[in-house]
Structures are given as C-alpha cells and as structure tokens.
C-alpha cells in the first residue's frame, strides 16, 4: 500500500503536473485536487504547488487562500495532516497564517531563476526526515516575490524553536531576512519553501540533480510507516 498525496490546482497554478510527477517518482500516488472542491478525496498529505495562482494579482497567494479547497486544507493541517507549500504554495500558506511572516517582491525587483544551494536546518519535519541536519542541497529557485519577511520577534522565535527548515547558502537570492528559504509550523507538519524540490527529481531534466527527491521520500516513509 502506498500513500496518497493531493496536489492542488488553483487557476494559474503551473507546477501541479510537475509535482504530481515528483510524487509518482517517489513511489506515492498523486491525487489532483481542484480549488473549487472542499473534498480532499481522503489524501494523506497535500502539496500546494508553485505557479502564479490568480496571476499573483493583489499579492501572491492572496486570492487562492480564500478558495474552498483551502478551507479543508487549513482545517486538516491544524489537525496534523502534512502540508507542503512550494513557492506560490508557500505564499498561500503565509497568507492563510498557517505559517508566519509574508513574502514580498525580491529586493532586486527581478524574477530570478537559478540553481540555488540550500542548507537543511531541520531534518525532523514531515517533509525533511530523509535529509540530515546541516546537509547542503541544490534545487532550482524561480520567483519574483520570494523575499521572506517577518518581525524580529517572530524571526527570533522561529530560530529558537528550530523552525527555520532551509537557509540560502552562497547567495541570498532575494533579500529574505536571515537567509530564510523555508520554515515550518510548530508541529512540523506544515512546511513552506520558495525553491522547487519537484524540479530536482530526475537526472535528465532541469539542473540534472535529484536533491529534491528527499521531500517526497520523506513523506512516503512517514505515511507508509505510520
């Protein structure tokens, strides 16, 4: 038996098919979820993929956050279901306040697409257990609203509680405070990050690395061994 991972499609989502592919490559069953349906089809975990949902108009993630599917996702995330937000998905998670802080326009004001080095700071979340703390990985980054900000108090708290999951290495590509690339909630089931692990799962395409596969094998082990 394998686990079912829902992948949400909002209008303007781009990386839903890629994410489904990554889920499949890791040995999980991808389940497409539609923004208008509250029903999560009994999935065991949910990924909010990247893209420009609603064109990123108003603010990235601001409009999607109010979709019917998110009502259920928010409720179940609070109940402990693993949720991963990648890029636009991360932006949606901050807009829903499942994760603290907010994402703003990159400090250099440009869209940036690059192979980004990261350090895994926390290997105890539902989505990072297959990594080791301190491990360095490279995955593609591509966004224009990727600058993570939160007030000092929140940042201190995130660090004190070990909730910074990924930090940018070598270059901070967007001016994110304290080089934060990804964070988790207190329970460790909800993780959001700007870079794209789903684009680093096959040696043939993208950057040719498979450093992102660990996200999906982590969740596989958690769900199947649970």
């Amino acid at each position: 038996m394998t686990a079912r991972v829902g992948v949400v499609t909002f209008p303007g989502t781009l990386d839903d098919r890629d994410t489904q592919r990554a889920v499949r490559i890791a040995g999980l069953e991808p389940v497409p979820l539609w923004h208008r349906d509250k029903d999560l089809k009994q999935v065991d975990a949910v990924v909010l993929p990247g893209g420009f949902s609603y064109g990123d108009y108003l603010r990235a993630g601001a409009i999607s956050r109010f979709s019917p599917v998110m009502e259920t996702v928010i409720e179940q995330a609070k109940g402990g279901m693993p949720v991963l937000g990648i890029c636009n998905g991360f932006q949606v998670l901050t807009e829903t306040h499942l994760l603290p802080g907010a994402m703003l326009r990159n400090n250099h004001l440009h869209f940036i697409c690059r192979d980004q080095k990261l350090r895994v700071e926390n290997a105890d979340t539902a989505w990072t257990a297959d990594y080791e703390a301190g491990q360095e990985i490279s995955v593609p980054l591509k966004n224009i609203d990727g600058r993570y900000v939160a007030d000092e108090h929140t940042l201190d708290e995130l660090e004190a509680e070990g909730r910074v999951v990924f930090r940018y290495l070598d270059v901070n590509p967007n001016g994110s405070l304290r080089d934060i690339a990804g964070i988790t909630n207190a329970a460790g089931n909800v993780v959001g990050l700007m870079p794209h692990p789903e684009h680093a799962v096959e040696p043939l395409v993208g950057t040719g690395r498979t450093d992102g596969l660990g996200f999906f094998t982590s969740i596989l082990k958690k769900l199947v061994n649970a």
Partner: protein
Amino acid sequence: MARVVVDVMLKPEILDPQGQAVQRALPRLGFEGIADVRQGKRFELEVEGPVDEAALARIHEMAETFLANTVIEDFTVRVDS
C-alpha cells in the same frame, strides 16, 4: 455611484526596494531634493448604493482581511470626493 479609495502601504519598518529604486533613480534623472520614496497600492472601489457607515465598515473589513496583508502592510480607507 460613489468611489471609495483604499491606500495600502508597506509598514515603515519593512524594506521597500521599489520605492528605493525610484529614489535612487531620481538624481540621475535630474530630480534632487526627494529624501525618501515609498511605493504602495491604491484601490479605487466603485460602490453601488449609499456609502454610509455600514458600507465603510464593510470596506474596512475587506481591506483588513483581503486588500492588505496586515503582517506587512497598513491601509487607509476614504471616500473620494
């Protein structure tokens, strides 16, 4: 129909690279004497029906929950005259 304007600006303590980029460009274009620039958003809402206190309260709520992200932004609501 009445127009209500919602202005949304980044909180003062949040870095505003867009405003900064504008400010940095000004001297090059020959405009001196601007000490600071902040860039925000302006929403013009065309409201059906009377813009009474109840309507403004609703718009205030809309701004707070939707038009602005109060983690990073402040907003003001006013009737355009």
